[in-house]
C-alpha cells in the first residue's frame, strides 16, 4: 500500500523536542486574540518578525470573524427570520473565516515553519485556547 509522504507525515516521524503554547490575549475582552509575545524557545528557530507577523495575521482574521458589522447583522436577522434553517444551506461568516484560517496556517506551515522544524496547530483544534507550536528535533544535529 503506497504511503503518502506529506510534509506533515514526515514531520511526524521526527521526535518532538518541545511544545510551546501561545496563550490567548484577553486585553480586548472576549474577542479571540493571541499574544504576540515571542516565546524564548523559538529564538533559535525562527525570526521574531516572521512569527509575530503570523500571529498578527491570525488575530486579524479572528477579529474579522467576530466583527459586528452590517454583514453580520444582516446574516443574523435573515437567520432569525428563517428560523435558522438558512444555515442548512449556507455557511456562517465565522465558519468561512475559520476555513480561511485553516488554509493560511497550512500555507504558513508548508512555506515557513516546516523547513525550520516547527509545526503550527490550528487553534480551533485546541478549542481556540492556544496556538500550539511543536518544535521538532533538529535532525541535522543528530545525524
Amino acid at each position: 500500500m503506497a504511503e503518502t509522504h506529506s510534509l506533515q507525515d514526515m514531520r511526524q516521524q521526527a521526535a518532538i523536542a518541545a511544545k510551546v503554547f501561545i496563550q490567548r490575549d484577553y486585553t480586548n475582552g472576549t474577542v479571540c486574540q493571541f499574544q504576540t509575545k515571542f516565546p524564548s524557545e523559538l529564538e533559535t528557530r525562527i525570526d521574531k518578525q516572521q512569527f509575530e507577523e503570523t500571529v498578527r495575521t491570525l488575530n486579524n482574521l479572528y477579529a474579522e470573524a467576530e466583527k459586528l458589522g452590517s454583514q453580520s447583522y444582516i446574516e443574523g436577522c435573515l437567520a432569525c427570520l428563517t428560523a435558522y434553517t438558512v444555515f442548512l444551506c449556507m455557511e456562517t461568516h465565522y465558519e468561512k473565516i475559520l476555513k480561511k484560517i485553516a488554509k493560511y496556517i497550512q500555507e504558513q506551515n508548508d512555506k515557513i515553519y516546516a523547513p525550520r522544524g516547527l509545526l503550527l496547530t490550528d487553534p480551533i483544534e485546541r478549542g481556540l485556547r492556544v496556538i500550539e507550536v511543536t518544535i521538532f528535533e533538529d535532525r541535522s544535529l543528530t545525524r
Partner: protein
Amino acid sequence: MSQMHHATLDHHHHQQQQQQQQQQQPGQYNQICTRTSSCGSPAPAEGSEPPSCPAHRSRNPRRKWQVFPGRNRFYCGGRIMMARQTGVFYLTLVLILLTSGLFFTFDCPFLASNLTPAIPAVGGILFVFVMGMLFRASFSDPGVLPRATPDEAADLERQIDSAGCSRPPPRTREVLINGQTVKLKYCFTCKIFRPPRASHCSLCDNCVERFDHHCPWVGNCVGRRNYRFFYLFILSLSFLTIFIFAFVITHVILRSNRTGFLSALKDSPASVLEVVVCFFSVWSIVGLSGFHTYLISSNQTTNEDIKGSWSTKRGKDNYNPYSYGNILTNCCAALCGPLPPSLIDRRGLIQCDTPHTVSQSNGTSSNSYASTQLHSHMCDQDQCIQSTKFVLQAAATPLLHSDPVVLAPLPGKTTTLGGPCAYLAPTQPSLPSCGGDVLTLRDAAVDSHCHHHLHHHHHHHHHHFVSPEETPCTTPQGALPCPAHLHLHPQPHPPVPSPATLYDPASQDALHEDSVRGLVKLSSV
C-alpha cells in the same frame, strides 16, 4: 511498511473484516497487540476510517462525542447535546404542547368563524417559532470549552509552579480589560484558565463560554452559543402565553354572551385548563423575559448580575467592560452578532494522534462510555500504543510505522491510562457482575448500578447515546449472549494475562514481554 501494522484481530473476526472494509494484510503485529481482545469491530457504519491510525484500521472509528468527558447526553449521533437531567425539559414540552393543542382544537374553530381566521394563523406561527427556539436552545452546544490536552495542562502547571515560591501557587491571573481588572480563574477540572465570562457548570461538568445559567426547563446550559435562542424562546413564549390567555378569555366571554357563563364553560371545558396554565406561567415567563431584556441591554450575564460583578455597589469605578456603551449595540450584538461554531467537534472522528483530553488523576471525568466494549477499545488502543512504544525502545529501529508523535503524550498518559481502565481494575472480583450490570445499563435507565463498584463518583454511563445504529461495535454483539463478558474475558491467545492484569497500567513488564515476543515473531517473517 504500513501493511505490517494493520492490526487484524484473530481469525474469528477476520472474515468480518474482509467483508466490510478494505483488507489489511494479516500482520504479525497482531501478536504485539495481545491485549486487543475481541472487540469485534466491524466496519464503521458511517464515515470513513481515520487514515492516520495504522494500528487500528480494523477498529470502528469512534466519534468524539462518545468519549466526551463532560456530563452531557448526546443523541442522533452527537448532533443533539443536552444536559443529563432532562425531566423538566419534557415537562416544558408537555405544557406547551398541551396548552397549544387545546387552544387550536377547542378555541380556534370558534374564534376563526366568529372573529377572524387570522387568529389561528398568528397563533400557529407563534407556536412554531416557540418550538423552534426551544429545540435550538435545548439541543445546541452552549459554548462548551474543550478540556486541555495533556501537553497544555503540563505546560500550564509548569508556568504556575514557576510563578511563585509561595505555597499554594497562585491559580488566578489578572487581566486588564477596557480599564477594568478581571480575574481569570484556573479550572481544576478542565485544566485551563477560564476566559473572562466563562464559568464551569457543575451540573454538566463543563466550562462554558459566556456562561449565563443552567436552565432545567430547557435541559441545557445557556451560554454564548445558545443565549439568543433562549431569549427568543422566552420572549416568544410570553407572547404566545398572553395570546392564548387573551383569546381564550375572549372565547369564553363571547360564548357566555350567547348562552350564559356556566353553559359556556360546559361547552368548552378545555378553556378552563388553558386559562389556569397561562395565568400561572405568564407571570414567571414575562418576568423572565423582562429580566433578560435588561441583561441584554446592559450586556451582562445572569451569573454576573447575581454576583454583582459590575454593580456600582462594589466600587465607584466599577463598570461593565464588555458593554458597548449603548443599548442598541448591546442588543444587536447579543441577538444578531456572529454565531461562533462549536469548539468541541462532536461528530469528528477520533484519530490515533488526537491528543486525549486530560482526565483527572483518578480518571473521574473521562468516562462517558456506555459499555465496557468502548472501554476496552480505548484501553486496547492505549495498550497497543504502549506496546508499540516498548517495541521501539527494544528494537531501537523504526520497525513499526506508527507515529512517534503518538508516544509523546504517553508519559502523561500512564496515569490516565489507569483512568479509563482503573474503573475495571479495582473491580476485579466483580468484573463479571459489572459486565452484567453493563448489560442492564443499556436497557434500564438506572445508570448508577455500576457506580458502587467504582471508587470515583464522576463516572457516568451515558447509555442513551448508544443506540444500535450508532455504535457498530455493539450491533454484532447484540446477537451474542453476553457481549460484555466476551470482552472482559480475553480470547485464549497466548500469553493470556489474567483479567486483573489486563488493564493494569502497572504491569508494563508484561506488556514489554509481549512486545518482545511480538518483535521476535515479526523478525521471523
